[in-house]
């Protein structure tokens, strides 16, 4: 596209640096502008303050990082969101810097500066308790693009007292690190004048962990927070959702052990991910919550990562299970800027992560989806067709859960004639799904234009879409469809008639209109689907269509040359139905048709159907009526379909994968196929960890829980051959035998599925309803102990006999296994009864 344009137009010489063409009204002379800028409080004035600041303000070695992070957010988070932010001065913990640690954070003041807004704060020192004062606005703030901290740095820094306490110098390595991390969001700490060096470590911990400024939080009101040892100043009110409570003992100085300190060198995304994995697997890191969190934070905000790395890290983080809500929201806050990335891959990765992390917070999910609306719409009108298609598929996915989500943007989904077919089809689907009272008129108008498109496929898709909308807005749509019949084009008429058939079944109120529209369209229908639909309509609603028998008569006349058996079947049924209400007109041709079907037809199904109807007629007309006169519509079906609004969580894990792009149904077919091919043992592949289960925390949790459930852990993929099973079965003694109450027959499939869930494999099983019914099961626990089981259901007894054999005699695991088995059998039994 671009190159094509480039070929035609000409380049123009740039305006020189002297600015030969002045901007409207104002001269773009740079000298003037500098003066102007100097007059602003946030610009160079800020840097002057920075220069005046005493040297021990060591809050940020790299002011640039803060500035960078600031830029990437366009509308700064929370600018238009009513939520409270977590506003914790978080920076520079560690022994040396404790005096400057953020405990004193006079709640409000720190909060606002932390959020990176420029707002010149009203009363910076007002919020704090006793001797707390504000200060320490990081120099990075002066560099923020929006002039963040304008005024604040000027006024507040001047008021700082210099009794910061001893030990300001010599920040511990972790202090430095966390400090540099804090720059990313431009967080300001505040000084408490009276802190003591003795409480350093704890304070540092609290400071580093105490939440990050950002828009995501749970609570709305300011929560009362316990603020560590420095709270001797009095409990401070902080608008945060939970207080950070950390173990105060056993905190060890992690000097130098953390990988990738300060700035991580550029290693490529894969290495970064490995780094994180290694760090998180480290038991020392795991044991220490602070370090754990710091590792995550460092990786997440890795400033050097390019977009591929970011996408990779976001994907990787999907496997991380936060241990608490607080941590969860910390992560969300850290990741918020990714939602505004200019790369759609990163935005979608972040969205998916948000949706999955916040699976228990629907309002957060909705909020994320609102935020991602902009980038998605931009991608939908992107110049790259392929990207556009992927975005449209995801829009559809979102619409399944939030039907009104894109309704106001319906115009973005209008098709243009130069677009490829597959995009048009997607857009029509989207239009069909986002229709509401306000836009229905415009959308239908647009869809009607598509119905006469040159491409027959696209025209038909548009007609089906109108049919879909007709379930809600029946009258308008039926009118449009009726007009389309007037075109007398084959491909249009056939689809319109099919749409009518479906519509009449779901919305009986439109029957009258449809019946009036039908006469005449038989001339323009040639294909099987269309003929079937028309014949069905004539049969079921024939009493309202005056010429119905004559249309059917034409079909009967030509039945010999009819190629589709389905049409003949439909014709038989329709004619018999019509015969019931208009016998005089139909009797003769019904006879002819039956005669043809029974005597001459070669298709077995048609002949049998003919014979069936013939014998049915022999049984008497009342009998025929009883069998054929079924309801003519089923409005509840439509309601059922509309109710298919799915929760966000049902597709959150599919977001930003190939699943929406293929479509759910096709994906199911693909993965079934793939599953059948690859039933082999899964190799431990470091590369494919994206889909290979959760990270350490969850595994950890499992092992913690395991002892409660009887120290039994069955291994999933224990595959025994039938021969091996048989051999082992006969070589072992029965270790346990019991009977289990059971009623009725067994559904082998259900049982097998249920057993699969708990990692018990089925070796062999009788058919359903066999007497006696038997099943052989096997399982293996993590120590290698085999459990072989026989289930026996005698027909006369109402109980299941269970015999278990074990290759290593261990009672406690055996009991565990039996209880698992009992649970499964009990559950299945409950379902049945």
């Amino acid at each position, binding site marked *: 596209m671009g190159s094509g*344009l*480039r*070929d*035609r*137009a*000409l*380049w*123009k*010489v*740039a*305006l020189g640096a002297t*600015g030969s*063409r002045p901007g*409207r*009204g*104002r001269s*773009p002379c740079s000298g003037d502008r500098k003066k102007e*800028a100097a007059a602003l409080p946030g610009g160079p004035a800020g840097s002057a303050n920075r220069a005046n600041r005493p040297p021990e303000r060591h809050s940020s070695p790299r002011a640039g990082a803060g500035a960078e992070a600031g*830029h*990437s957010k*366009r509308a700064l988070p929370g600018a238009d969101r009513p939520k409270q932010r977590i506003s914790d001065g978080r920076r520079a913990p560690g022994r040396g810097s404790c005096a400057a640690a953020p405990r004193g954070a006079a709640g409000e003041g720190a909060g606002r500066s932390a959020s990176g807004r420029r707002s010149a704060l009203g009363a910076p020192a007002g919020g704090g308790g006793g001797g707390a004062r504000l200060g320490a606005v990081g120099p990075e703030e002066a560099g923020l693009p929006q002039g963040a901290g304008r005024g604040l740095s000027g006024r507040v820094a001047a008021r700082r007292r210099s009794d910061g306490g001893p030990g300001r110098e010599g920040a511990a390595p972790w202090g430095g690190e966390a400090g540099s991390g804090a720059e990313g969001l431009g967080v300001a700490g505040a000084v408490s004048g009276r802190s003591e060096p003795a409480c350093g470590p704890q304070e540092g911990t609290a400071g580093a962990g105490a939440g990050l400024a950002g828009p995501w939080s749970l609570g709305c009101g300011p929560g009362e927070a316990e603020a560590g040892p420095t709270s001797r100043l009095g409990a401070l009110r902080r608008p945060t959702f939970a207080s950070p409570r950390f173990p105060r003992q056993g905190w060890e100085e992690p000097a130098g052990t953390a990988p990738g300190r300060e700035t991580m060198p*550029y290693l*490529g*995304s894969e290495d970064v991910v490995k780094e994180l994995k290694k760090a998180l697997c480290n038991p020392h890191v795991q044991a220490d919550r602070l370090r754990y969190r710091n590792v995550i934070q460092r990786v997440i905000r890795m400033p050097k990562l390019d*977009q*591929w790395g970011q*996408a990779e890290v976001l994907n990787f983080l999907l496997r991380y299970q936060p241990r608490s809500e607080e941590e969860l929201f910390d992560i969300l806050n850290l990741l918020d800027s990714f939602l505004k990335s*200019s790369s*759609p*891959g990163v*935005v*979608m990765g972040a969205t998916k992560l948000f949706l999955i992390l916040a699976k228990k917070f629907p309002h957060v999910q909705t909020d994320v989806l609102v935020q991602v609306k902009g980038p998605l719409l*931009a991608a939908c009108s992107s*110049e*790259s*067709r*392929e*990207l556009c*298609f*992927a975005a449209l598929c995801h829009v559809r996915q979102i619409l399944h859960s939030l039907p009104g989500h894109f309704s106001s943007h319906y*115009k973005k989904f209008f098709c*243009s*004639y*130069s*677009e490829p*077919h*597959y*995009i048009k*089809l*997607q857009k029509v689907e989207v239009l069909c799904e986002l229709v509401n009272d306000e836009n229905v008129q415009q959308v239908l108008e*647009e869809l009607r234009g598509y119905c006469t498109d*040159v491409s027959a496929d696209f025209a038909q898709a548009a007609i089906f879409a109108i049919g879909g909308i007709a379930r809600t807005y029946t009258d308008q749509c039926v009118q449009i469809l009726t007009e389309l019949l007037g075109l007398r*084009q084959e491909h249009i008429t056939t689809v319109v008639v099919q749409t009518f058939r479906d519509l009449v079944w779901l919305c009986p109120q439109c029957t009258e209109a449809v019946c009036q529209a039908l006469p005449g369209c038989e001339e323009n229908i040639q294909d099987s689907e269309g003929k079937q639909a028309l014949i069905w309509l004539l049969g079921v609603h024939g009493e309202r269509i005056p010429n119905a028998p004559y249309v059917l008569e034409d079909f009967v006349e030509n039945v010999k040359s009819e190629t589709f058996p389905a049409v003949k079947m439909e014709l038989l049924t329709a004619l018999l139905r019509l015969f019931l209400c208009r016998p005089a007109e139909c009797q003769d041709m019904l006879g002819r048709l039956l005669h043809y079907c029974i005597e001459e037809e070669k298709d077995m199904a048609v002949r049998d159907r003919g014979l069936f109807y013939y014998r049915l007629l022999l049984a008497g007309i009342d009998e025929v009526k009883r069998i054929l006169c079924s309801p003519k519509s089923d409005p509840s079906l439509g309601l059922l379909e509309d109710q298919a609004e799915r929760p966000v969580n049902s597709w959150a894990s599919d977001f*930003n*994968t*190939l699943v929406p792009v*293929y479509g759910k149904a096709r994906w199911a077919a693909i993965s079934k196929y*793939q599953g059948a091919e690859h039933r082999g043992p899964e190799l431990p592949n470091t*590369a494919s960890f994206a*889909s290979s289960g959760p990270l350490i925390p969850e595994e950890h949790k499992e092992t913690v829980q395991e002892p409660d459930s009887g120290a039994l852990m069955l291994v999933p993929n224990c595959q025994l051959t039938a021969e091996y099973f048989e051999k082992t079965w006969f070589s072992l003694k029965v270790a346990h035998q019991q009977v289990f109450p059971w009623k009725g027959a067994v559904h082998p499939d259900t049982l097998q599925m249920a057993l699969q869930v708990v990692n018990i494999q089925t070796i062999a099983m009788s058919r359903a309803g066999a007497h006696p019914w038997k099943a052989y099961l096997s399982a293996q626990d993590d120590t290698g102990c085999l459990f072989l089981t026989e289930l026996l259901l005698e027909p006369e007894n109402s109980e299941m006999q269970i015999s278990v054999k074990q290759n290593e005699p261990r009672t406690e695991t055996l009991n565990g296994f039996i209880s698992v088995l009992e649970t499964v059998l009990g559950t299945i039994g409950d379902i049945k009864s």
Partner: protein
Amino acid sequence: MISQFFILSSKGDPLIYKDFRGDSGGRDVAELFYRKLTGLPGDESPVVMHHDDRHFIHIRHSGLYLVATTSENISPFSLLELLSRLATLLGDYCGSLSEGTISRNVALVYELLDEVLDYGYVQTTSMEMLRNFIQTEAVVSKPFSLFDLSSVGLFGAETQQSKVAPSTAASRPVLASRSDQSQKNEVFLDVVERLSVLIASNGSLLKVDVQGEIRLKSFLPSGSGEKSQGGAWDRQLLSAVYGGIWQPFLTFFPLTEMRIGLTEEFCVGKSELRGYGPGIRVDEVSFHSSVLLEEFESHRILRLQPPQGELTVMRYQLSDDLPSPLPFRLFPSVQWDRGSGRLQVYLKLRCDLPPKSQALNVRLHLPLPRGVVSLSQELSGPEQKAELGEGALRWDLPRVQGGSQLSGLFQMDVPGLPGPPGQGHSTTAPLGLGPASLSFELPRHTCSGLQVRFLRLAFRPCGSTSPHKWVRHLSHSDAYVIRI
């Protein structure tokens, strides 16, 4: 994670094939892809296809298929982004992306792919990194032509004062070759807007959508001063320190900084208003992550250190509220005689651009009812052309001056369109006629009114010749639809 990457020509010939993970299983994956693509049923999208356990994801770029295969359920957005980034990179290195340039530069492309992807994982796609590792030079074919001679001024010296550059100026490899030291330092800045408009049959505006981009293509050596003085020596040094020592070394030097000044009245969002008079408003803006925005808030200046090659500096969108009038209005009138099947369409096209501007390559596309057999036309200008094709009328207007009005009268016979009997002439359009759509280009015009005020480059003091800077404004139609 990518298993294979390959480039096919539009006819399905493999130009480039690279297997990153060796899991092709001995099959010809490229062949498989093309067979799959051509045999696809019409209602399925070709973007993502699968065969066995392999997913094919591709983009079409300048007539080529860039295909990646993967066996994992990965993010389609990232992968598509990667493919288009690869297309841009290849274009930067080879000058332009086409079958010819790719097949001339096979070695270069493979080298590039080796550096960008390792075992199917992205290493880097940044020009700054890659230029340290790519040794091969692009082969550019320069067919001799008289036009080239015309750009050579008196005494063989190039005219430095020329005010316009040829449009192909930007399609050359970004990295200057060793032999050719005469390459100029040039920067090209494009403000490109795509316009999609929908006008109802009564003339009311239903939808306006402007998608804008500021694109930069930089041929500046990003190492600034020294590098341009001794190119050949630099390259030897680079190959000597191949192990990556060069990279941090490079970053110590301040790079060229570019400042792009946008119209000062430019405002973002609905509420904000700047300056006096009607501002230039857009709904949403997003910037490339390398753009520094300190001066954007106050003076609408974007700062960045331009990497070599192409870069989208800024993207913006504007909908529903255009400051300037629409470039074109169409006034159609339709006469349809149902009895004889005669259809007469009179189209009047008014161009509402300022008189000094013009629109190029204007083409009107009007779908007709099925069965149109003959066409007779009366056009207002000799250079115009109208013809029937693919069930539609095409009216080509190579050049339309701002403020002018053009008209065309078209008469057609539609015998296969039997209407309800007993009706004579009617002015309602038969179904199947319309909507009309226009495609055009508006050079030196942006629909949003956004202009680049200036483009400044701050060189280090030892910098050599001052670079050439070219700025271009351009709007073109994405979908300009007028219902009839």
